[in-house]
């Protein structure tokens, strides 16, 4: 299935887009999403572990399943509230 993925901060600069589309297997997981992401955008491969993935505005582990219509996002290391 084809899913839309929101991109923020550094991830947005890598993809050049606020939102990208990726093809993952039906019944796929966050791990599948990551694999596809690394193929399409090699800069992510080197630092995949520092990018979190959110599903419907909750952080998700690699085993989390993805359904059509889920709101997906790439979350680089955050830096709000810094002082």
């Amino acid at each position, binding site marked *: 299935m084809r899913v839309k993925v929101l991109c923020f*901060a550094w991830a947005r600069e890598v993809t050049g887009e606020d939102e990208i589309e990726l093809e993952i297997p039906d019944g796929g997981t966050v791990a599948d999403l990551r694999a596809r992401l690394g193929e399409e955008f090699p800069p992510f491969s080197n630092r995949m572990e520092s990018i979190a993935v959110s599903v419907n505005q909750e952080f998700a*582990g690699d085993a989390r399943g993805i359904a059509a219509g889920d709101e997906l*996002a790439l979350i680089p*290391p*955050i*830096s*709000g*509230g*810094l002082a």
Partner: protein
Amino acid sequence: MICRIVETPIDMGELMKHVEEDEVGGVCSFTGLVRNHSRGQKVTHLEYHAYPGMAEKKMRQVAEEIEERFGVTRLALEHRVGTLKIGEIAVGIAAASAHRDASFKACRYAIDRIKQIVPIWKKEFGEDGAVWVEECPVDAETA
């Protein structure tokens, strides 16, 4: 309770007033300001970007965790996004409780936890160009 992302200047007095009431004995506040230097570099200004929707959702989660841990319900959390100048307020927190210990713990937990789980990013602009500040990779297990 206030948990919000704002695009306009943060008013600490408003946040502190919001948490006060007659039963309150102590209010602890934290103001996070844009500094003129960062890791040895001069900073001219900053941009804060948030994941709309999710950022406020995770701020509300921080508030819920604070109620569970410290019993503090009188809380105000505000984070600004957009372009900020040196000395402007990026984040404002106020926590009130009958006794001072809980207000300090709640306020400290809020700022530490916001840094961990609220999807907001800071881009620093200095003499040598701009850089995304990437402090805290999110741990999906504990976020």
